[in-house]
């Protein structure tokens, strides 16, 4: 299932959040939207997630969507297990099966020792791991990442970058990342959409092997995008 925007506009009363946005994301692609803050990146993600409705234009999007939030958005009164199980409980899945699925993703995100912990007792990195496990547990066709690393320290961010890349490689899921960091987008994604002034201004294809940061052409790609970003 692909994601497609055709001439999509979004307005809030008199404010234009998106203007004439068109793009196509194929199944299994790992793409990112980058751009200055407040110019429409997150709005695109919310429209894909079905949280916001486009004002005009056509949107084709899959039904099963998992989302990881910038503020992590875990439910503070639920422990790790219950937070991860949140989306599964909406699907009337038997409790035994929920138990297996939740533990699979808790293990994948290295949270086995924190099953009974509540979010307040976890570090920022651990919380975001719970957020990722919660999104993956519903086996989404598309995984949306809304600036998920912006509040984390560089070491944890690097670890989570690696985790997301290996999830993408192992599961073949479509992943859409929103970020304001060019280096992050270049190090992780195959295709980068630059959103400026509420419009899609450029699309960049990144054809570098992983891990990318050590690659000789990494900074060259970053510089190329940076020039357009600040133009």
């Amino acid at each position, binding site marked *: 299932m692909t994601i497609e925007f055709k001439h999509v506009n979004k307005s809030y009363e008199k404010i234009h959040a998106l203007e004439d946005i068109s793009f196509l994301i194929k199944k299994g692609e790992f793409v990112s939207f980058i751009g200055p803050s407040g110019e429409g990146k997150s709005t695109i993600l919310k429209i894909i*997630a079905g949280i916001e409705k486009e004002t005009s234009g056509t949107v084709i999007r899959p039904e099963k969507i998992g989302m990881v939030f910038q503020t992590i*958005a875990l*439910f503070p009164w639920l422990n790790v*297990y219950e937070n991860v199980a949140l989306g599964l409980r909406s699907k009337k899945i038997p409790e035994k099966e929920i138990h297996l699925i939740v533990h699979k993703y808790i293990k994948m995100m290295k949270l086995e020792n924190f099953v009974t912990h509540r979010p307040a007792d976890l570090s920022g990195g651990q919380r975001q791991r719970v957020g990722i496990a*919660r999104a993956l547990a519903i086996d989404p066709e598309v995984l949306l990442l809304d600036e998920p690393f912006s509040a984390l320290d560089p070491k944890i961010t690097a670890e989570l970058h690696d985790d997301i890349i290996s999830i993408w490689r192992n599961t073949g899921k479509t992943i859409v990342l929103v970020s304001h960091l060019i280096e992050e987008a270049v190090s992780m994604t195959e295709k980068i959409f630059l959103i400026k002034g509420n419009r899609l201004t450029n699309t960049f294809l990144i054809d570098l092997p992983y891990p990318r940061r050590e690659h000789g052409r990494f900074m060259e790609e970053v510089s190329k995008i940076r020039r357009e970003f600040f133009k």
Partner: protein
Amino acid sequence: MRRTRRSHHYAYAITAGERLYSIFLGPFFVICVLFLAVKFFSVPSATNVNFSDLLTATSFTLGRLLVAYVIAVILAIPIAILAVKNTFTEKIFLPMFDVLESVPILAFFPILILFFLRINLPNGAAIFILFLSMLWNIVFTIASGLKLIPRDIIYAAEVFGIKGFRYFKEVTLPAIFPEIVTGSILAFAQGWNLIIVAEVLHTYIPGGTNSQDLFGIGSILVRASNQGDTNLFIASIAVMVVVIALFNFFIWQNLIHYSERFKFE
């Protein structure tokens, strides 16, 4: 709660010490204090009221407060949800509630008493006036709690398919739990303030007598004051203070502590 109990004893988990303290030691302490008080103290009273009468009266008063409180909470939650549902309802209902809150409820008390006496339910008058005095405190604190739910939490609930009654049960109620506790504390304080008036019905009935008052710590307090029974007056106030303090210590403090886990960072 079925899911919580059956599959994950660790959801909402509190430590064994906290559990022991709140479930066993709190009530045990109250029972011990009351037992010793009944056993060893009595109040020499000109109005022939002994200490155990005071405790019984306090339990009647507490009963009225609790009934009024439960009704107030049950109604306050949907009223607050409706009030802050969107900017339109907010503009209509919040100013309206402001006006209703400032209406002097005691002005309507004589009419309420006559109505409830006519249907032979004098307790109803006291409970209704207590309920009205509690309602707005809870409505306004819950409304502010609803507005504090982070947008991403609401989005997460939507993305993960939490809708309808499940949204109310698993998102709204836990999210506003700290405000329910705060509102309840304010409401109970308001209730205790009003109990002295609410139980003394005869002052609002033309030609009324003491026999029309409701049996409770509030009416005993007023009667002791009117009859100049200083011992009974002091004892009634002491019992009231002790009950309020115990209520605060064993119920509200525990709930405040427990509500910490429901707060967003």
